[in-house]
């Protein structure tokens, strides 16, 4: 036991919180009590983690990443993990007034009492919620102001692949898969505590940095050129490695988490059980950060998936199972998986779904298989680019014929609604490329009407603004300014609405371009952007992913103040194209992708040249497998039958006792 363990007792604050709960909206989100949650004794372990998904409970609780790490840590005898989520402004105000600190939903323990505060950032828009949590937890916002009594703040998730904008606020960042990383951090922290905390907090951070797989921003110095670009990023000590590698979990079958999926009482955004059927994607869509940073593809086996589905349904009672991955129809045995699961759960009111779908007829067959029980409401496809040319630029290899054939199959099979996802603001895009979306939607409706002989079919077009992301071929690209984004979307909307024949059958959904600019600033920003985040938070920025809380003007005001006197501004970070020679803020963070390859792929994009998927064609040297010593792990395994027990014919509680005489 260390000195700080004597001070940080992890005593529940529920009694104080309870007095505030009757006064707030949806109090259930703050009380915990989820089915399958774990609450361990504070004094039985040496290393204590608090995990946060920095958004509202209804979004954060279903998050698979946090659920997996929560379970992996809690399975250890020497560690515990509890969870905390972003607190809505109504309760935040009451907590500040009553001096109630940020708490965990498991034990209602103060977040500041834990050893390690891990945050999972799926999106950069959670950064301000991190500051709220730190502040409510009475942890200094700036890492430099913390001492041995404060937790180590560790960022993970996809946004952590460029943690530079939050470098001032975090103590460490982990790139890539978290399962083994949290175990490593737990080991190092335990050993350090057992040795009497040598060197204090700095000593621990140094131990973490030395591994080469945990990034400690304070141990790197950034120098800038006069024009604002980065000159170099250098380690502050000889033992600190020049580059920090991402983590890659191999053999998914040996990590069947979550084994005990959490079932919240409160309503959440995903009311279903999720099973990750593979990790990684090598389709090579150039805009897609997830596909680039999660390579290589690692499949879970057909038997591993079946066992997880069965176990999860038993443990949760959910009536829907989602088969998750970046492109689920790409699993080498997806046909067998879908058929076997559909057979197994036929008649049981259990719905199966493939949330991410690919444009091809096979995918519709899969959807038909999974919806045997009857629900055929809508199917979603993502052509992403409106014109054939655009789809070559982004390497989304879908032709218009593919799309028409796919939707015809879908409408003929009884699906009434097709949703199509597109992006606006892609590199080299013109108004014409975006207006092609209208033509495509018209062709879709036309084909559907011909195939079904009915006018009762619909197509919804959903358009997101493109934000260039680090570690992708588009990391050098200029982001489209929000005025042009908005004008393109307005032209598209007018074109669709003006169509007398098809306009009424086509729905259109989009957001304005402003939030994308803030996301762009946070995505490709460097350490100087930290001051903008702090200023925006001080001005009241919270829950930036929620349109009712987001304010573009607040962010721009904050940026103006925080970047005053600098040669850089918001446009410099967003709408400026980068040159090959520029040092990017994340260049010292190794996703395995060879930067030469990324540049070549960027050039190929500009030349409208597509590249194939390395699962079916020879390796094209993206660099990941060599650099990370990993390999593609895909089937087919040859196992086609699910060796699963049949559910009993009779429920255990059904008792066939004789009818009682009346």
């Amino acid at each position: 036991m260390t000195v700080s363990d004597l001070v940080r007792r992890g005593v529940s604050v529920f009694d104080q919180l309870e007095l505030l709960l009757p006064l707030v909206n949806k109090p259930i989100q703050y009380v915990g009590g989820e089915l399958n949650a774990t609450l361990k004794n504070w004094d039985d372990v040496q290393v204590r983690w608090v995990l946060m998904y920095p958004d509202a409970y209804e979004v954060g609780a279903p998050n698979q990443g946090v659920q997996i790490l929560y379970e992996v840590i809690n399975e250890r005898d020497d560690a515990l993990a509890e969870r905390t989520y972003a607190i809505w402004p109504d309760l935040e105000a009451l907590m500040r007034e009553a001096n109630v600190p940020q708490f965990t939903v498991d034990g209602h323990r103060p977040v500041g009492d834990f050893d390690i505060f891990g945050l999972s950032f799926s999106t950069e828009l959670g950064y301000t919620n991190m500051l709220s949590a730190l502040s409510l937890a009475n942890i200094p916002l700036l890492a430099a102001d913390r001492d041995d009594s404060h937790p180590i703040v560790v960022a993970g998730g996809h946004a952590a692949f460029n943690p530079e904008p939050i470098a001032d606020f975090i103590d460490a960042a982990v790139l890539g898969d978290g399962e083994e990383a949290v175990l490593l951090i737990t080991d190092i922290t335990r050993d350090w505590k057992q040795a009497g905390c040598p060197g204090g907090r700095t000593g621990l951070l140094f131990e973490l940095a030395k591994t080469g797989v945990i990034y400690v921003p304070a141990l790197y110095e950034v120098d800038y050129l006069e024009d604002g670009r980065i000159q170099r990023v250098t380690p502050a000590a000889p033992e600190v490695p020049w580059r920090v590698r991402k983590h890659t979990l191999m053999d998914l079958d040996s990590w069947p988490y979550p084994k005990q999926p959490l079932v919240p009482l409160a309503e959440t955004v995903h009311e279903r059980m999720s099973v990750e059927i593979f990790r990684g994607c090598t389709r090579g869509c150039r805009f897609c950060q997830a596909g680039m940073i999660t390579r290589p593809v690692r499949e879970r086996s057909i038997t591993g998936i079946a066992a997880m589905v069965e176990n999860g349904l038993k443990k949760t009672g959910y009536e829907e199972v989602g088969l998750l991955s970046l492109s689920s129809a790409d699993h080498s045995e997806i046909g067998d998986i879908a058929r076997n699961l559909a057979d197994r759960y036929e008649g049981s009111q259990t719905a199966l779904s493939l949330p991410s779908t690919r444009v091809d007829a096979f995918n519709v067959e899969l959807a038909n298989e999974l919806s045997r029980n009857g629900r055929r409401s809508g199917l979603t496809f993502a052509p992403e680019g409106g014109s054939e040319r655009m789809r070559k630029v982004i390497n989304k290899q879908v032709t218009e014929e593919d799309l028409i054939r796919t939707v015809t199959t879908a409408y003929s099979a009884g699906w009434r609604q097709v949703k199509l996802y597109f992006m606006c603001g892609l590199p080299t895009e013109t108004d014409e490329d975006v207006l092609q979306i209208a033509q495509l939607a018209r062709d879709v409706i036309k084909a559907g009407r011909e195939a079904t002989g009915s006018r009762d079919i619909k197509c919804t077009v959903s358009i997101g603004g493109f934000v260039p992301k680090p570690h992708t071929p588009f990391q050098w690209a200029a982001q489209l300014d929000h005025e042009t984004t908005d004008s393109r979307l307005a032209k598209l909307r007018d074109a669709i609405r003006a169509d007398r024949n098809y306009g009424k059958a086509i729905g259109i959904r989009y957001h304005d371009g402003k939030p994308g600019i803030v996301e762009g600033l946070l995505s490709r920003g460097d350490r100087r952007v930290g001051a903008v985040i702090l200023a925006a938070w001080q001005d009241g920025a919270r829950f930036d992913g929620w349109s009712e809380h987001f304010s573009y003007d607040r962010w721009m005001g904050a940026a103006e103040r925080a970047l005053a006197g600098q040669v850089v501004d918001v446009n410099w970070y967003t709408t400026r194209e980068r040159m090959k020679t520029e040092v990017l803020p994340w260049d010292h963070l190794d996703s395995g992708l060879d930067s030469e390859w990324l540049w070549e792929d960027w050039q190929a994009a500009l030349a409208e040249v597509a590249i194939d998927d390395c699962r079916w064609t020879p390796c094209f040297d993206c660099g990941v497998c060599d650099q990370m010593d990993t390999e593609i792990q895909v089937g087919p395994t040859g196992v086609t039958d699910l060796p699963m027990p049949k559910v009993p014919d009779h429920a255990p509680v059904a008792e066939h006792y004789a009818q009682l005489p009346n």
Partner: protein
Amino acid sequence: MARQAPIRDVAPTVQRLRLRYAKRGRLRFSSHRDFQRALERALRRAEIPMAFSAGFSPHPKVSYANSAPTGVASEAEYVEIGVTERCDPAAVRAALDEALPPGLDIVEVVEANTPDFVQRLEASIWQIELPGLGVAEVEIAAQKLMAQGEVTVERLTKNGVRSFDARGPVVLLVVEPGPGCAILRAVVRHATPSVRPDDVLTALRQAADLVPPAPPRVTRLAQGPLDPVGATVGDPFTPDRAPLAAAKT
């Protein structure tokens, strides 16, 4: 292709079971919808052979009676379920209680042997703990309220602000001492709109200026047939138990 619900073999309901459950501790902050989801999942985990409705999206046959408001604990909430195989009520109670999170507890299960169950839920007994208030001041306020024939209160419902009499349905209002608080015990007849504990508190504020310094802790102790003479509430399961008891003798 016509939009018709697929024709399925819908297994018939062979037995109806009535459940009494409690909402305790921190889970009193669960809303009625939260409980509905938790119950339907627990029914699946416990492998209760539920009867389902026909149609496009089949739903398990569950009927909910008037539920306590979010934030209010309860010892006496009721639901009825339909099953496709005969089940032992005691086994269902144990299995379902095991499958629900602690704090949502199944107290008792009986086979439905009588009609008109919901009509039997005529009144509730509410226990309202008022931290920071003394018995004497609450007693005076309660007497003031009971002395009035009618006290109109307003409450925001999903159909807008409604005004109704919160005094008439209050059959009994007594005060007892508790640890650091006064405890109000109210017997309230079910009416439309229903008079809830917060309406009684609003009425006390309006009629007698009683303002609790801290949020009250409220628990529904019972629901059932109103005994107007003794101003108390009976057990609504009694008629369902009667045939069983008769059969055993």
